[in-house]
């Protein structure tokens, strides 16, 4: 009962592949729903969330945590959606938003530039040159976003379990390949995998809830034991302490919660 994330450049038939995989496996297919959930839960206009996850942060935003907050909201919504497994997500940055979850099959769909330009021209009724410019700009934006927030290049093949080029393989064949990979024992949902998913959901929940009140933090969760890393030192830690001192729905099922002020923040922290 794997979770499949399909990432792709624009106009690479990713959505089509995702829908057909979901249909074939009887999974839910998710994309924009995640943004809608986040928007509803945290009362943020959807547009702002789209910007947050699409546009790379500008100079000013790099020093603010607004973008991280929006991403935390989206990550929370995604974690909630895919918690029970059986899902194909083809929205933005799926391969990055579900870190360390063993039963996530990360797929990258690539189409040739000619195919993408053609698709864009057909959709927007623009010239080939304009279409190429739009796609290039879009790719560059994604790359910068990914670099700025996660320090990785989306073209790096080590981020994915499966990369499929659609210039010679058909979408049908791509769907076949993905379904075959998803049925591998490697993506079975074990107890440990389910625990990781639950922990991710909890960490997202705590982070999303706290960001607004206390500023930028990092959160880890293992077996329901939450560690909050206060990047802002002792003063921020004090604010966190105050925030978590009263009983909250977000803290309800946590086994333990601790605040760390000094020391390295683990790479896997949200």
């Amino acid at each position: 009962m794997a979770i499949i994330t399909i990432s792709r450049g624009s106009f690479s038939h990713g959505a089509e592949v995702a829908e057909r995989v979901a249909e074939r496996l009887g999974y839910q297919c998710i994309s924009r729903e995640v943004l809608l959930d986040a928007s509803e839960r945290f009362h943020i206009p959807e547009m702002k969330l789209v910007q947050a996850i699409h546009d790379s942060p500008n100079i000013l935003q790099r020093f603010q945590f607004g973008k991280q907050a929006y991403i935390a909201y989206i990550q929370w919504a995604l974690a909630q959606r895919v918690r029970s497994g059986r899902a194909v997500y083809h929205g933005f940055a799926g391969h990055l938003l579900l870190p360390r979850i063993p039963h996530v099959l990360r797929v990258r769909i690539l189409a040739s530039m000619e195919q993408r330009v053609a698709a864009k021209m057909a959709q927007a009724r623009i010239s080939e040159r304009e279409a190429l410019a739009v796609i290039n700009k879009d790719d560059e934006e994604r790359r910068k976003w990914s670099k700025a927030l996660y320090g990785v290049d989306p073209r790096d093949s080590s981020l994915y379990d499966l990369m499929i080029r659609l210039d010679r393989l058909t979408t049908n064949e791509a769907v076949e390949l993905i379904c075959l990979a998803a049925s591998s024992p490697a993506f079975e949902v074990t107890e440990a995998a389910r625990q990781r998913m639950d922990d991710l959901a909890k960490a997202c929940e705590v982070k999303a809830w706290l960001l607004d009140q206390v500023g930028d933090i990092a959160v880890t969760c293992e077996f329901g034991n939450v560690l909050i890393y206060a990047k802002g030192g002792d003063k921020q830690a004090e604010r966190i302490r105050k925030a978590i001192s009263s009983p909250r729905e977000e803290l309800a099922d946590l086994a333990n919660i601790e605040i760390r002020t000094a020391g390295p923040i683990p790479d896997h922290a949200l």
Partner: protein
Amino acid sequence: MAEQLTFDMILVMIMIAVAVFLFVVEWIRVDVVAILMMVTLPLLGLVTPTQAFIGLSSNAVVSIIAVIIIGAGLDKTAVINRLTAPIVSFAGKSANRIIIFISLTVAFISSFMQNIGAAALVLPAIQRISKSLKIPIERLLMPIGFSAILGGTVTLVGSSPLILLNDLLIPFKLEPFGLFDVTPIGIALVASGIGCFILLGRFILPQGEGAGSVTESLETTAAEAPRVTGEMFELHTPETFTHYREPVTVDLLRRRYLVNVLGLTEPPDYKVLAPASAAVIRSDVDLLVYGRHSEVERLAAELELELKAEPQVFRDDVTESVSGVVEAVVAPRSPLIGKTLKQQDFSRRFGVTPLAIYRESDIYRAEIGDVLLKMGDGLVLQGPLERMQYLSEGRYLLFATPLDVERMHPEKALLAAFWLVLALTMVMGFHIQLSVSLMTGALGMIITRVLTIDEAYQSVDWRTIFLLGGLIPLGIATEKTGTAAWIAHAVLNATGVVPPIVLLTIIALLSTVFTLVISNVGATVLLVPLVVNMALAAHADPRMAALVVGLATSNSFILPTHQVNALYMGPGHYRSVDFMKAGILISIIFIVVTIGMIWLFYGVS
């Protein structure tokens, strides 16, 4: 035949009055009162300088020194733990049942050997039980000490006065007593003493504030435990534990439940203390863990383990003199500053398990291996105290409490037991003097390195030694100046002709008063000839009169002057007032029961 009252006699009576007064008001500590007597009596010329200090070399005092050393040796080798285990499992956690059980045991032992020996032997065991069951030691020691004294009346060899009794009857050509002639009275005395404490203990005993202990450093350690927010628990895995389950490791339990595994059994009967993180927990094994109660309960429920009411398999390993939970602070210029415990390979290097880190108001319990340590961080550590001692000697950590760690030698248990048995055999089998026999045992323990000579010296409680040693010259002065004889004559002459039972009661009262100040042997030697003559004159049974003296010279409960009371005063945190409160009641019961039993069994009316 009564002597004239002399100036020396008056001086002695004044000194007795001063001593009793100081015992009561406690302007100075009781042992200092004793030293005061030791110094003042020769200055007043009431005893010779040699007599003044002869108490320090007396049989009783030397026996106490030896028996304390033997007790320390037994404690260090965990023999005491093994002996207390059956007592605790038999008596459970009820203080009353423990009092009854140990009191009966002590009374039985002391009916065959000197009661100070019996009392000193069980002292470490009582301290252990008090600590492990958190019963205030004040509630346990006095009833047990009194039982040791009362047990001396059960047979004719139970206490020195009774041993002497037959010899004292010889000049009067009276029929000697048999070994068990006193047994019915003795048993009645023991039973009424224990019964009195069980029924009225809460009114006559100080109730204490918590678990008593002798070693103050350990007391502080125990007091800190609540801050640590965890306790030790023992768990048992079912036989099906590893069936259909991913391997459960020590590390997993720590990460998942924040529960630290401190010990693990390995079939057939190995015990692994501080097991490695990767150690897998198997079926049908016992685990000693440290964690919050709720978390251990959750662990037990989720993994279907049996949570025991108290440690059983690891019982010896959790006693506070072997291992403990201690808080230490990261020292200035400590090599730990700026490093994590993981980087320093802390647990493996020092053989102790870090349980938590305190930083200001925060308690870190999860992933503490990754915390960058700062100066002043509090580390909560669990492990053998010997290891802690080693750590405290380095410059890594400052220990919040001075570690007065005893180095334990459980491997010497058999040797320790051997020396005890040898000493007891010498006393009971060969009738070698108690002090010589016990000192032989103590020396044996030192030579065979059960404990070092320094540890032996440290274990001796000087308060007890001087309290006893200082009161002995007071007894000598009372006898030597004829004060005791004068008082006895005066009292008995004033009595006139009374029914035998009244005469016996007066003799009992007189013996009781005498034994509080002068030694029980001295009182017996002095009083027996007197009372036999009195009884003959009053047509009462002279043997009964002598017997009352032999018994009532053990009726020494009101002041901490009896050896057993002196021994238990320090460890029990008792004051003279405590002895008076319980002692007056027990003394009255003693006299009533003795006279009642004589009336019942020997037909004196």
